[in-house]
């Protein structure tokens, strides 16, 4: 389902392994080759820099907010609404304006970075981990285990993610699910993302593992008496790292957008936590009276998603020189 993730979805093969063959007589490791190519892509570098910047902001949000002299994200200032309750626009004290509770929008955008990155990176990481594990098992063992797991993937892929998320969010968003282990809010979203995304990763990994199984280095390891687990984790997994990273980096923006959509539908992050999606949801209908409330979180969301997409493109280009743009 992800943006350009399907671009590397193999219609039968491991497109991401080409660099293994390209080596030949060169003394450089694949990693070094990759980095050289990546370094030359200025757009990708810029995106990486922006993402690092975002991470710094997310981690150091309280510090950033206090340096800028802004109130905290949940500090209500009810005097900043006019007689009709409409919020006031950008000013020196509040460069991005305030929302209908008088909370500073810039501060909320900064803190919202945390939510987006947690959801994007965390949710993706979890679903990737699950997908890799299952994909590896399916591809390595084949037979009935593969059949079972593949069918499971099919089932989950048959349900539209947003509807699934909507239902789960509504169901778990009131009192929590799994006996309260999944509580309303962030945990629910991450749970939904993990649940919805793992089949995509699993399918790709499975395909890659299937094609890798037949290679000589696997046979060599077996001849040396290596156990299945060792082969899977020491031999196969490292070779999957590259495509997994590329794929994951393309899943991140999709998941960030998914959180925004779920928050818009009311089953995502709950107030008073600041989340870009939730801010957009509240702001969209009143765009004409409070343009700042929609423009700034919207721009933040757009730039973040754009950056991850561009980074993913860059990674992909660096790993598959044949697709050089």
């Amino acid at each position, binding site marked *: 389902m992800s943006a350009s993730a399907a671009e590397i979805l193999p219609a039968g093969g491991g497109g991401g392994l080409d660099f293994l063959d390209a080596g030949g007589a060169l003394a450089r490791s694949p990693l070094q080759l990759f980095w050289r190519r990546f370094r030359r892509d200025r757009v990708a570098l810029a995106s990486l820099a922006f993402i690092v910047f975002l991470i710094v902001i997310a981690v150091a949000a309280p510090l950033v907010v206090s340096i800028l002299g802004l109130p905290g994200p949940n500090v209500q200032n009810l005097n900043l609404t006019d007689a009709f309750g409409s919020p006031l626009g950008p000013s020196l004290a509040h460069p991005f304006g305030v929302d209908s509770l008088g909370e500073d929008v810039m501060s909320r955008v900064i803190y919202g970075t945390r939510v987006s990155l947690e959801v994007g990176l965390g949710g993706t990481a979890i679903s990737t981990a699950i997908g890799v594990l299952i994909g590896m098992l399916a591809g390595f063992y084949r037979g009935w285990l593969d059949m079972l797991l593949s069918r499971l993937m099919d089932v989950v892929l048959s*349900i539209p993610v947003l*509807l699934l998320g909507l239902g789960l969010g509504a169901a778990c968003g009131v009192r929590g699910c799994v006996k309260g282990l999944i509580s309303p809010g962030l945990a629910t979203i991450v749970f939904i993302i993990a649940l919805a995304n793992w089949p995509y990763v699993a399918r790709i990994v499975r395909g890659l593992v299937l094609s890798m199984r037949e290679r000589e280095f696997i046979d060599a390891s077996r001849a040396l008496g290596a156990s299945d687990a060792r082969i899977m984790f020491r031999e196969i997994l490292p070779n999957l790292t590259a495509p997994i990273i590329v794929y994951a980096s393309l899943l991140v923006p999709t998941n960030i957008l998914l959180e925004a959509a779920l928050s818009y539908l009311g089953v995502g992050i709950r107030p008073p936590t600041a989340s870009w999606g939730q801010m957009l949801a509240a702001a969209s209908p009143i765009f004409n009276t409070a343009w700042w409330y929609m423009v700034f979180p919207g721009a933040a*969301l757009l730039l973040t998603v754009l950056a991850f997409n561009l980074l993913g493109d860059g990674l992909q280009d660096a790993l598959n020189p044949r697709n050089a743009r």
Partner: protein
Amino acid sequence: MIRYVIRRLLWGVVLLIVVAALTFVLFRVLPSANPALLRAGRDPNPGLVKNIEALLGLNKSLPEQFWDYMKEIFLHFQFGYSYYSQESVRSLIGGRLSATVSLTVGAAALWILGGMSVGVISALRRHKLADRLAMGGALVAISAPEFWLGFVFLLLFASDIGKFRILPGAGSYVGLTSDPWKWFTSLIMPWIVLAAGSAAIFARLMRSSLSETMGEDYIRTARAKGLPERRVVRHGIRAAINPIITLFGLEVGVLLGSAVLVESVFNIPGIGELNYKAIQQSDFPVTQGTVLLASLFIIVANIVVDVAYAYLDPRVRYS
């Protein structure tokens, strides 16, 4: 070939059954509120609630409810009755099907045609201005949330509340048969919003896939042999089409999900909107019915994709 198709169809049916079971678990075992309580409204004295629970069949054990539910679907093709309006889910969905189909089929057409043509042009004019603009635009289209985009469109172009009043606003959808022109114009903005993301993905994929193909040796040979460029390009496209077909199956699911957002913003009385409200109201029969329907479409789309692959690549039939 036939055997492959039959196998795929059978698996499709099994999938549907499993999905039905899954939605049952999802929407009844993890409830957000007792629908009987919600329906009883402002005076839910225990007697009334018990009454309603009996009416809705909620007092039976879960396995019993599940068995009843599965029987109704697969034997009678009945999806139960809405807890709220008591209308049969089938007719509720049926009444809204045309709106969602209008929306999604139109968007799908726009997405495929638009995406592919932009992708082809971009691939053939790599690194030129047209390419950069197209790919830049595509990136932005992928990165913008649909509901945000929808509101921006409304506030710019809606004839009732927009800045430049050129297209009908929210809520102006009418059926194709009642007023074809109004039907068409009221769907223009929703189509664009719904198709934007997917079209962009298609364009990018087409571009990369075609660029790769056009670099192949046999293309060079064809050119050297003196084939007109148009036919060369056609060869390229045919070879590049594979990943696109795969993507189609995956994107159908995305499209159906996104339809919820677009229907909500533009107030189109479709199935997405129905589903959204039903979930809020814990109206399980309606929710299950709509999710099942969506899953059916995805399963069918994926069967079509798989069969197309099997047709193009005989090796697949034996997997």
